[in-house]
């Protein structure tokens, strides 16, 4: 018995040593890369790219870690425990916190300016620190556009998508009258989805970094547009149902859908305003619902002053405490360069490439190419200040309460002002 025990212990120890030896072998640098996953294909493609990178750079080993849920919370906790990965995704709305706290390594100190110049300029803006340094480069991006169902439009006697916000509401009503299906789906809350309405009607771009910055909500344009947006749901759904009428605006849950893409793909609603991430979802989950024939994309409706949309982006950041910034940079340079983006973004078709020059690439999906062709007067990145994540979540809760009719528009505006004061006051 003891002999067996000894043999077993020996075997266990040797497997342990053998299994970790590739990572500890001399001269080989070992970096950890963490991201979330937009599906199995993305994970598979990343693995392929990582293999290729390691073939080209035999002195660097990359360990890919997929965190499927609550990504930024996980990364923060790993910082707290001192085991954060060397390279990781950072969403634009979380970036200021990571930059302000010194968690990210300034890439502008390590990257060549030619490399940085390849990127769309407006996508880099949010990742610049107060010191003017750049703290990350976007891996891809998406923007809001209007998705419309051609079949439902035709049944309602409409042949083109709405061009203004007023038309959006009118068309939604008309579609509901003629087809019985809700014309438009929006989220309950969703401060970022309301933003194009505000900007296109002349409200200034919001920026909250001090307790007093809540005065943005005192702007008459903000009040007017927020009231219109909240009323879309309050009048289009809540009040309509109280009168026993069919709603012309719904939230995805109202039609048994998980999110806007789901509601649109199931053809339960005729219009949604959503981002490029919806395109691969529709292709994958609703293969019979064809782009061009059954549905199409149009620019986000225009306001009185201009046409505006919101861009969403994610950067690959380098941990400021990494022992191997050069190796981490080499890896990022490979993933974000022409070769990496061509494979990971353009061919995969999930989102838009963050470097210029792919607009006419033959592999760029036509749906994505179409969104790139729209002209906007204002395109701002999803970012409202250093604590964007918290603000977005609490503004959205407030908007949702107003949309359900629990609080008035004035109460909502006042509450949001107080939230700004509280978030930056303590």
């Amino acid at each position, binding site marked *: 018995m*003891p002999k067996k025990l*000894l043999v077993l212990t020996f075997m266990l120890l040797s497997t342990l040593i053998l299994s970790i030896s590739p990572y500890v072998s001399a001269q080989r640098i070992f970096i950890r890369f963490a991201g979330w996953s937009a599906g199995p294909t993305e994970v598979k493609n990343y693995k392929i790219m990582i293999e290729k990178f390691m073939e080209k750079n035999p002195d660097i080993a990359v360990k890919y870690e997929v965190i499927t849920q*609550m990504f930024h*919370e996980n990364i*923060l*906790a790993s*910082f*707290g425990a001192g085991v954060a990965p060397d390279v990781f995704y950072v969403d634009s709305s979380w970036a200021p*916190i*990571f930059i302000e*706290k*010194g*968690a990210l390594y300034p890439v502008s100190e390590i990257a060549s300016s030619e490399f940085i110049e390849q990127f769309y300029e407006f996508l880099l803006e949010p990742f610049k620190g107060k010191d003017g340094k750049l703290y990350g480069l976007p891996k891809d991006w998406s923007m809001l556009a209007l998705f419309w169902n051609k079949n439902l439009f035709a049944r309602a006697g409409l042949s083109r998508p709405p061009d203004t916000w007023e038309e959006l509401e009118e068309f939604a009503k008309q579609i509901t009258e003629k087809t019985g299906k809700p014309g438009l789906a929006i989220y309950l809350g969703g401060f970022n989805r309301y933003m194009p309405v505000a900007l296109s009607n002349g409200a200034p771009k919001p920026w909250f970094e001090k307790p007093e910055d809540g005065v943005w909500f005192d702007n008459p344009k903000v009040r007017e547009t927020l009231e219109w947006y909240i009323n879309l749901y309050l009048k289009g759904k809540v009040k309509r149902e109280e009168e026993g009428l069919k709603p012309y605006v719904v939230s995805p849950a109202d039609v048994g859908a998980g999110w806007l893409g789901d509601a649109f793909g199931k053809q339960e609603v005729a219009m949604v305003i959503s981002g490029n991430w919806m395109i691969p979802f529709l292709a994958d989950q609703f293969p019979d619902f064809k782009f061009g024939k059954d549905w199409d994309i149009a620019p986000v409706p225009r306001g009185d002053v201009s046409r505006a949309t919101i861009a969403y982006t994610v950067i690959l950041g380098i941990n400021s405490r990494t022992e191997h910034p050069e190796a981490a940079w080499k890896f990022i340079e490979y993933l974000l360069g022409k070769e990496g983006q061509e494979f990971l973004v353009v061919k995969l078709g999930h989102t838009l490439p963050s470097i210029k020059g792919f607009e006419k690439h033959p592999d760029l999906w036509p749906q994505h190419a179409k969104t790139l062709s729209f002209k906007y007067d204002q395109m701002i990145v999803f970012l409202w200040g250093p604590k964007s*994540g*918290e603000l977005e*979540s*609490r503004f959205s*809760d*407030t908007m949702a*309460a107003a949309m*359900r009719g*629990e*609080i008035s528009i004035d*109460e909502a505006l006042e*509450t949001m002002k*107080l*939230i700004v004061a*509280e*978030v930056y006051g*303590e």
Partner: protein
Amino acid sequence: MKKFFIFLHSYYDKAQTKEFIGGMLLILGAAFFNLVFGYFSAIFAVYLSFMKWDYIGPMEFVGFKNYEIVLRDLYRGIIGAPYLLTPFFTGFKNIIIYTLMVVPAQTFLALILAALANQRIRGAQFYKLAYFLPGTTCPVIISLIFIWLFMKKGFINYMIQFFAPGFAPDWLNDRNYLLPAIAIVAIWGTSGHFTVSFLAALQAIPRDLYEAAMLDGAGPIRRFIFITIPLLRPMIVYVVVMGVIGALQMFDLAWVMAGSSGGPGGSGYTIALDIYNEAFTRLRPGVAAAKSLFLFTIIFITTYLFQKRYGKVIR
């Protein structure tokens, strides 16, 4: 080297040490996890509650400031500020209402079910199993199933039509019904678990007491009230205390059924949800720790007072 192994071998071979080592090995795993995830975390939470921290930078001592934030939230809630600005007060208020709904109902239901299962009837074993089954199911899955049942045109409203025609609330989207809906799920999910506790206690009551009572002419209901209930008192206290602890810490059902911000009117918001949001949305782990200590104090005081008042074993 060889000598060393021989020493180890002979040491291990002694019966007493064998037993000692065996025992130690058996409790090692549990003790380790308890120390790390129990005691260490609890002590760390106390430490953290006096700190300002953002996970990335160093911690900064702030004294009682985190507790002040909690108290200010409570104060503002009491003087009537809207729920969107007083998350902790909202969670506190909801969880008290929830506990008052859940604990008496689940205790009562568990007691009745146990008394029924204790009868000598056909298929008693089947009933016992059926009652206990919800207790073994993951609360998240239970919540998902109930979300479906609680829909406006769902099964529950369909059944209600036979008893109360015209009463068809939109359970999950109406702020007056969300918390009761969560409470119903909790009662359904936990009663079975406590039924087993009661059943064990019931079977320990000596038969001759009932026989003596029967000779004195006591019917089944009088026997239940005057023999069963008093003798079950220690178990009732245990069930209520465990129920209160579980109810005050409720997180999973609210997270799934109401969402992280508590659903319409914040009516499904709980203290545990608020602790989570404080730590990971508002990124103030220090305040989250202060809130969890506050929750600990509430649980400790209620259970202590209850045990002190009713917990004395009567023989």
